[in-house]
Each structure stands twice: as structure tokens, then as C-alpha cells.
């Protein structure tokens, strides 16, 4: 598969086109929503403190946020602000959207990256065990179980995990990312507390992605294990373990690398729901509260960050893949 220059241009063109569609959608959608950001200006989520605005105040704020301009002018303003890294002012949190996102994004990145690492680790290990015992009972049982397991969507899995480990066994906290009002004696204490709170969301997300990695590793290993160089390695007298890890696994992991990029994308999407299950203060919970509060700029910002992250991941994977496999590319 030769990667020509026009292929490269094609990929970048597709990336740009998708980005543009996304920006347009991102701009238009919140504006078509029913209601406006000033219909419920309350200071807390429960909506117990509803401030009703007078007509003058409403007009003042509509003008202040530029919502009275024609749509196309708003779009131009939106794009030029975006180019300056300005995502606007969150109406609900009353601070710049970039800051709201920066406050919550690290939590999402934390659980997504940990979940990716964990599912890769477990998936590749299980895949190798399965491939080495191919056609034996343990392989069949493992495969049947994991395939069925993959059909459970991540947030339902999250509720089950929350019920088992949080509610029934009291092993993990039910919500949040840190213990409220906690004082830490050391950095390790703090890290421990964060890990303790992140454990269940990470477990949920990684279990949801496990099967994909497992199947890919297993199938890829099985097809690699019939190659000539594996026979050569065995003929050289290498031990079975080294043949499988050094020779087979190294070559079988290429498709897994591609998968990782897509996985991060899927996990970002899945995190939106899973965070809501565990009330984890990441970007997914924020998106939900922004939708409830009709906080246009915040919704736009979050959608943009999530979408661009997913697109860039896919683009990067393409690069990494070509770097790893010299047969692809110039």
C-alpha cells in the first residue's frame, strides 16, 4: 500500500472539510435551541433561586453578548474569536469558556488516558493468552464471554459497577473526583485520593474497550503466527515465550496502534455518559449541565474541544502508523 502525495492531501482535505462542517454545526445548533440563556438565570443547579429579568435587562444582555446581530455576522465573529483562542464567555459559570474547559478537561483526560492504557494492557495480554491457546477450551470460553460483554454499553456497565463496588461493597466513593474539603499531608496522599475516586470510571471505560483490543490482538497474532519468520525464529531454537513476545507480538500490534486512536475518540464520547453516572466533574458532566442551562458558548466550546480532540487523534494515529510500518508511506 503506497501512500502517495495525493493520498496525503486527500486526508488533510477530508480533515479540513470535517472540521468546517463541525464548526458550522457547532455554531448553528445551539442557536436553534428553544429558550434563551436568560430565561433561567439561577445561581445553582436545582433552580431554586430563579432571577427573573426585566425586559430592559434582557435586551441589555442580548446586546452585551452580541446575540442581536444577524447570524452570519455572529458566525464571522465566532470564527475570528476562535482563531484567537477565545471561545467566549460562559453565561452560566460567568467566566471564560476556555477556563471552564481547562478546569474540567484534565479530569476527562485523566480517566480517558488511564482507561486507554489499562484496556490496552489487559486486552493485549488476554489476546496473547487466547492466541497461544487457540482452538482450546479456554480460548473459546474467553472469546464468547468477552464478545457478549462488549455488547453492554459503557454507561450501563458503569451503573452496574457503581452498584457493586460503590453501593453494595462500599469499596469506592459514589461521586466526585476528590474528597471534599480534604487536607493532604503529602502529594502522595492527594494522588491516592484522586486515584481512589477515578478508579471506578476508569474501570468502566477500560472494560468497555477491552474486547476490541482483545479481538484485534488475538486475530492479528493468529495471522502473524503463520508467517515464515515465526518458523525461522522457532528453527533458530528460540524459546516459545520469546517467539510470541519478541517476534509475533511486535508485528501483531500494528493494527492495535490504529485502533488506539479510534479508541480514544470513542472513549471521549463514552466519557460524557460515564462521567454522569459517577458524577465525575469532567467535561461530560459539564456538557450536560451546559445543555440544561442553555449555555451556548460553553456547549460550543466543549463540542469543539471533544470533536477536535477526536479528529486529531485519528490524524495522529495515521502518522504514527506510517512511522511504525515503513511499508506504508514514502
Amino acid at each position: 500500500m503506497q501512500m502517495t502525495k495525493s493520498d496525503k492531501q486527500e486526508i488533510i482535505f477530508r480533515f479540513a472539510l470535517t472540521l468546517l462542517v463541525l464548526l458550522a454545526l457547532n455554531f448553528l445548533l445551539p442557536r436553534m435551541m428553544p429558550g434563551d440563556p436568560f430565561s433561567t438565570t439561577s445561581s445553582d443547579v436545582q433552580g431554586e433561586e430563579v432571577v427573573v429579568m426585566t425586559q430592559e435587562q434582557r435586551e441589555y444582555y442580548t446586546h452585551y453578548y452580541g446575540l442581536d446581530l444577524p447570524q452570519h455576522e455572529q458566525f464571522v465573529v465566532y470564527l475570528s474569536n476562535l482563531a484567537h483562542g477565545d471561545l467566549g464567555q460562559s453565561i452560566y459559570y460567568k467566566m471564560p469558556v476556555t477556563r471552564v474547559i481547562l478546569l474540567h478537561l484534565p479530569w476527562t483526560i485523566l480517566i480517558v488516558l488511564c482507561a486507554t492504557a489499562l484496556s490496552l494492557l489487559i486486552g493485549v495480554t488476554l489476546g496473547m493468552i487466547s492466541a497461544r491457546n487457540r482452538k482450546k477450551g479456554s480460548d473459546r470460553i474467553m472469546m464468547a464471554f468477552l464478545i457478549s460483554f462488549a455488547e453492554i454499553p459503557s454507561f450501563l456497565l458503569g451503573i452496574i459497577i457503581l452498584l457493586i463496588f460503590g453501593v453494595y461493597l462500599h469499596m469506592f466513593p459514589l461521586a466526585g473526583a476528590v474528597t471534599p474539603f480534604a487536607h493532604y499531608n503529602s502529594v502522595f496522599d492527594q494522588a491516592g485520593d484522586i486515584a481512589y475516586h477515578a478508579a471506578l470510571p476508569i474501570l468502566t471505560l477500560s472494560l468497555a474497550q477491552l474486547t476490541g483490543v482483545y479481538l484485534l490482538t488475538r486475530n492479528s497474532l493468529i495471522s502473524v503466527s503463520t508467517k515464515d519468520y515465526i518458523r525461522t525464529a522457532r528453527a533458530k531454537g528460540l524459546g516459545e515465550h520469546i517467539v510470541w513476545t519478541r517476534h509475533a507480538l511486535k508485528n501483531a500490534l500494528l493494527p492495535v496502534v490504529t485502533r488506539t486512536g479510534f479508541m480514544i475518540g470513542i472513549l471521549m464520547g463514552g466519557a460524557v455518559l460515564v462521567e454522569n453516572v459517577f458524577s465525575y466533574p469532567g467535561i461530560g458532566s459539564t456538557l450536560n449541565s451546559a445543555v440544561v442551562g442553555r449555555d451556548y458558548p460553553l456547549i460550543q466550546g466543549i463540542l469543539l474541544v471533544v470533536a477536535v480532540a477526536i479528529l486529531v487523534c485519528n490524524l495522529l494515529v495515521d502518522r504514527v502508523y506510517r512511522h511504525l510500518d515503513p511499508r506504508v508511506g514514502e
Partner: protein
Amino acid sequence: MRIVSFLEDTAGSAKKIFSKFSIEGKIGVCGIALIVAIAILAPLISGYSPAKITGGSLEAPSSTHLLGTDELGMDIWSQICYGARMSLFIGLAVALIAGIGGGALGILAGCLGGTVDQLLMRSVDILLALPSFPLLIVISAFMGPSIFNVILILVFFSWAKPARIIRSQTLSIKTNTYITAAKNFGATPFYLLRRHILPEVLPVLFVSIISITSYAIIAETGLAFLGLGDPTSKSWGMMLHYATGFKSIYFTPFWQWWLIPPLVALIFLLLCLAFIGRDLEQVLDPRLRQAGGA
């Protein structure tokens, strides 16, 4: 007469396909049949209306309320029965519209080629590259929560996959020499479509319709769970939404009969669909059959 023989044919081939299913596939078919029966017979077997207050608040399961009641005193078993209607209806409606529509577009793109094909595949590429779930949340928030809107949005996001699969199938069928031969014998495009392309494409389309059904059910549940479902409907996802939204549900025993039933019902439904989908794929796709499912 033709309709009768057609029905007999369909029943016959369905029986043949069923006999080739694995045990899991058979469990899947029976499970779906059970859920469909519950959905259809809901008024008979539920005993209560799902939206009427028929008991005390949060009663534990008993002989009067099989699975207890929710916070407003509505019967949970009857909510499960009527919820099955919602999940199945949304799943099937989305899958049929998106599957048949996407399939038709795919065949069209494959047969016509040229600009139509380019344009269609470009949109498919973009649609598949967009992060669907965050967008789903935002779009359904803006369209307002109603069953119709949820179906519309889900169709918009799920027609691309079958379109792409069917297009590539159509293209590969078109290269066969028997198509050229048929053309030389004066076959019209419509004849080719009916006689050669459709029979080859339909099994694949059927498998993707089943996978869209589960996708739609999952997506509807996810949206409802976030509170973006139809508030007047009692779908299983809405039940999850109300139960998890109830303050301190995890500190009380209420989750045992309020949260577990919709959870179990959903997972059961999704597993059944997955079993059927996997077996159908193996029975209908000749290439997989040759590989022996290895």
C-alpha cells in the same frame, strides 16, 4: 396466491436460518420473542397503567406490585412492560428507516457512480468522522425532547454505515462477468437490480439493520438517561434517568427494585440482539461460512 407462496417461502427460509443458529442465537431469538410478546401484551399482563399512581411511594415488591413502585407510586413492572414498546419501537423504526434508506442510497451510488457517488461518499466520510454522541446530545437538546425527534436524529446519524457497506457490495457485484452477460442479453437496470443485486445485498443489509437497532436502543437510552428523552414516555432509559436522579437512591434499598429492572431488561435485550446479529452474519454471509466462523 403469490403473496401466500411468498410468505411460505419467507417462513421456510426463516426456519432454515433458525436451524443453523448456535445455541446463543436461539436464545436470542426466543428472548426477542419474549420481549415482543411483553410489549404487545403490555395492557393485559401489566395490571396497572404505567403513568397512574396506583400505590404508595417507593413500595417494595409485593403481590400487589410485582416489582414495587417508584417515587410517585407508579407500578414498576407495568413501566417495564410499556417501556419495552418504546425501546423496540425506537430501535426498529430507526433501523428500518436508516437501513433501507441508507441501503437504497448505497445501491444508487454504486450503480450511478460519478458525481452522485462522490457527493454521497463525501457526506458519509464526514458523518462517520463526526463524534456522534456529543453531537447527539446537543442536537436532541436543541430539537426538544420527543420520540419523533429522537428517531429523526438517530436516523441522521446511522444511515451512513449501511450506505457505505452496500455501495461497496454493489460495486463488487457489478464487476462480475454474469452482469456483463446479462446486460449484453438486454437486461434493463431494473431487472439487474431485482434479479442480481438485491438478492446479494439484502442479507448484508439485514445484518446491519440489526446492528443499527441496538445502536438506536443504546443511544435512546443514553439520551433518556441524561434527561433528553421524551418526558411523557416511560422508556427504560427514562426509568434509569428518574431512578439515578432520585436523591440518595444509593443510600436506600430503593435501587434494588427501581434501578435493577430497567438495567437488566436493557442488557437482556441488547445481548439477544447481539446474539442474533452475530449468528445471522455467519449464516447469511457466504465468505464467513466458508471460513467456518474461525
